[in-house]
């Protein structure tokens, strides 16, 4: 089939704007060929070029003494001492997962795993952030079952434990679910591989699965809104092959142990095109490819299709000249193709051939790093002021026991067991704390260290105040990491937003970035990698701003860890941090009154830093027996969770003073920078003294007891529930959705 004639109209169909078309013409000095148009369209898509977000992302703090690799590579790398480093990143697979939840989620996991092992790291932990529509939306059950099975099957098959994450339901995701996948890998600090195509004459090798017509224009799809029309234009969905990915992983790591590789990058979004342009672009070199040598799964594929295919489980390697045979040998041992398809040149151009005919001849630089960048207009959404106005006094009174049961059984707060039992959590024998802890904790064999990871964002907060919401997401994830005793080191993000061409969305985006930047700078946790997903919008309705944060921390002595579970009856329960009774944006407002209103709690970064330091010190000195961060749902939910985590039936006797707050605010308010810890009877003094020294408010609020959760407010009985009753509500919370 002959290529269509390239015209302005065709370029517009490919998603280029008039301006971008002019720019393409001036870069080439002629009309692009059809494959070249394909390359412009994917390289300049939102997904690959970050054209709406680039100017904002520059505000992130990205440097720090431990950062070995910041943003710009396939994943970030952070030093954890003793010659070891961790490599991590988070990525979205939102649009594909909505169209085909199982394969979409599975290939999302496959993609993020490749981003990490392409850096030379062995993946040792996966986390996932899942955001579904309202629980009773007709599509939610189907989407959730498919997504969870897809994530599980891929990670389980590869043998990387899934150890944490987040599941959130909100009507704003009815037409646009979010699937954010995080992977962390372990590598030697002096053996980092990067995506560089350098060294004139070095061979370019294609390794992994064969190329088919999968997902052509996936990157452009992720760069446009959904509508009824796009449902028709669905590209061939990518199908994941975790078995092949496992072989690819082992072959790559085996090869990386030798001095053969100059540069390596996975073929992710926009496949061969983006990997070759990015690798040559980073190295400032040129590249020559013979497309007819690409291993193909289907017959009759055209250069355009080969360049744009998003077939999974493939990588591009630049090898040392003369070492191709070694690459082939190792890949063949693992049953995989490894074919030299070109070489590095000094022309600064991408010259691509099809049976000897030159079908692409483009300068690499202008296409890859001089892609368009927009300062899109921004405007605060109208009506935000009225949303954030909240008259708490007008809320009807609630019975604390009933409210607690409603919260514990709500899909947002109930047990994630239905999800997490589908994930292998313990393969590789490193999982010290898996799902259920504030942060997952994975030990590093051969050392006393462990790495802590937490994934957090509260979309309600972000909708009501994207700046504060961004700060709070960083603070909560850092606090979660500190709750297991670890020191927060660095973070990755996945910024999920609506249509950036809308000034309101762009405003939300910019404010979120500012909030994340400010908190990350204060916490000294630089942003080392991340991902932006725009156009999460259907028929003009966009999602809440959802900047998911993945925080990584280090615990030097794994034996000093803390977990959330109550340990012994009689242990003292201590609340750390100050209670203001803030209800804006809270789970209580949403679950009990259906309100998404008020402004989120304001975060005092210095108070947060003091709390985080305190938690680490309590762990290091063995002063506390458990620790759990007080976030969604507030104090009473936190205490109930500590009891449920104990596995047996431990509860608590709490004695609280209202100090002018309503019971709702006192028990379910969501103030930042708080945590609940326990200490053995008599040991609470140590906690209180350390807290006083570090200037963190702390108060004993009760004791651990068996079987019941009993609350007294100002000396009067306020709630008395059996833990069995709470457990039943909590364990069955997802049942209405998944059966």
């Amino acid at each position, binding site marked *: 089939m002959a290529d269509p004639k390239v015209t302005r109209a065709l370029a517009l169909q490919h998603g280029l704007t008039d301006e971008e078309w002019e720019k393409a013409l001036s870069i080439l000095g002629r009309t692009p060929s059809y494959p070249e148009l394909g390359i412009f369209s994917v390289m300049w898509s939102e997904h690959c070029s970050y054209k709406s977000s680039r100017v904002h992302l520059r505000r992130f703090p990205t440097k720090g003494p431990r950062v070995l690799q910041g943003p710009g590579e396939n994943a970030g790398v952070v030093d954890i001492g003793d010659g070891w480093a961790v490599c991590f990143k988070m990525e979205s697979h939102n649009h594909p997962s909505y169209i*085909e939840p199982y*394969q979409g989620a599975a290939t999302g996991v496959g993609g993020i795993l490749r981003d990490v092992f392409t850096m030379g790291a062995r993946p040792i932990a996966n986390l996932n952030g899942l955001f579904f529509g309202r629980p009773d939306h007709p599509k939610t059950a189907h989407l959730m079952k498919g997504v969870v099975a897809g994530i599980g099957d891929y990670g389980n098959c590869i043998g990387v434990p899934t150890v944490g994450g987040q599941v959130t339901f909100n009507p704003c995701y009815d037409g646009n679910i979010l699937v954010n996948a995080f992977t962390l890998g372990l590598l030697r600090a002096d053996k980092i591989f990067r995506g560089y195509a350098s060294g004139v004459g070095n061979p370019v090798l294609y390794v992994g699965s064969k190329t*088919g017509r*999968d997902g052509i224009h996936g990157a452009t799809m992720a760069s446009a809104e959904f509508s009824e029309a796009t449902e028709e234009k669905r590209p061939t*969905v990518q*199908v994941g092959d975790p078995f092949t990915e496992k072989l690819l992983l082992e072959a790559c790591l085996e090869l990386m142990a030798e001095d053969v590789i100059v540069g390596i990058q996975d073929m992710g979004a926009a496949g061969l095109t983006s990997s070759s342009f990015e690798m040559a672009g980073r190295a400032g070199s040129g590249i020559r490819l013979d497309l007819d040598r690409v291993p193909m799964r289907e017959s009759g594929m055209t250069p355009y299709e080969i360049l744009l295919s998003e077939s999974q489980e493939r990588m591009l390697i630049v090898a040392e000249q003369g070492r191709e045979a070694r690459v082939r040998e190792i890949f063949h041992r693992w049953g995989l193709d490894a074919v030299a398809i070109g070489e590095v040149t000094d022309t600064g151009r991408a010259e691509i051939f099809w049976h000897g005919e030159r079908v692409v001849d483009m300068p690499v630089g202008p296409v890859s790093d001089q892609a368009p960048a927009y300062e899109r207009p921004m405007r605060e959404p109208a009506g935000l002021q009225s949303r954030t106005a909240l008259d708490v006094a007008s809320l009807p009174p609630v019975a604390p026991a009933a409210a607690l049961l409603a919260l514990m059984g709500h899909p947002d707060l109930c047990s994630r067991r239905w999800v997490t039992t589908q994930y292998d959590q313990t393969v590789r024998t490193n999982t010290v704390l898996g799902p259920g802890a504030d942060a997952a904790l994975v030990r590093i064999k051969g050392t006393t260290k462990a790495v802590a990871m937490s994934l957090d964002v509260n979309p309600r907060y972000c909708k009501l105040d994207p700046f504060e919401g961004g700060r709070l997401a960083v603070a909560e994830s850092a606090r979660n990491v500190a709750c297991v005793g670890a020191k927060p080191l660095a973070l990755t993000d996945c910024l999920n937003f609506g249509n950036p061409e809308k000034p309101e969305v762009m405003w939300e985006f910019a404010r979120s970035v500012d909030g994340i930047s400010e908190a990350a700078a204060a916490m000294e946790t630089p942003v080392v990698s991340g991902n932006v997903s725009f156009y999460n919008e259907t028929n003009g309705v966009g999602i809440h701003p959802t900047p998911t944060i993945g925080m990584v921390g280090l615990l030097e002595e794994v034996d000093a860890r803390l977990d959330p579970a109550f340990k012994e009856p009689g242990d003292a329960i201590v609340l750390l941090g100050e209670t203001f009774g803030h209800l804006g944006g809270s789970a209580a407002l949403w679950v009990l009154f259906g309100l998404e209103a008020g402004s989120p709690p304001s975060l005092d970064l210095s108070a947060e830093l003091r709390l985080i330091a305190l938690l680490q010190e309590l762990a290091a000195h063995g002063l506390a027996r458990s620790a759990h961060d007080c976030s969604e749902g507030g104090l009473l939910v936190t205490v109930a969770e500590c009891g449920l985590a104990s596995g047996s039936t431990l509860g608590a006797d709490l004695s609280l003073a209202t100090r002018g707050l309503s019971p709702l605010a006192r028990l379910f308010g969501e103030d930042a920078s708080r945590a609940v810890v326990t200490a053995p009877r008599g040991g609470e003094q140590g906690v209180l003294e350390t807290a006083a020294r570090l200037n963190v408010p702390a108060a004993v609020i009760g004791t651990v007891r068996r079987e019941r959760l009993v609350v007294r407010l100002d000396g009067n009985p306020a709630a008395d529930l059996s833990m069995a009753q709470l457990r039943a509500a909590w364990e069955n919370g997802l049942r209405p959705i998944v059966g």
Partner: protein
Amino acid sequence: MKARIHVFLKEGVLDPQGKAVMNALRTLGFGEVQSVRQGKFFDVETDPLAPGESEARLREYCQKLLANPVIENYRVEVLEP
């Protein structure tokens, strides 16, 4: 009614299982094997349906549950009315 429904991947959609089965057969010495595609089938028994209605109903099963239209096709076959 007795029926059989075949559900299979659309042309061009990657079939990792079929590929692995093909490789395994070849390794076992069956070098003549050139391609394998794997699919599912369902043998269904139902209460009698109104005459002429069976095929439409089977297709409904596929559309509503058995096949994933994004990547799969199906074929229905009435074996006994």
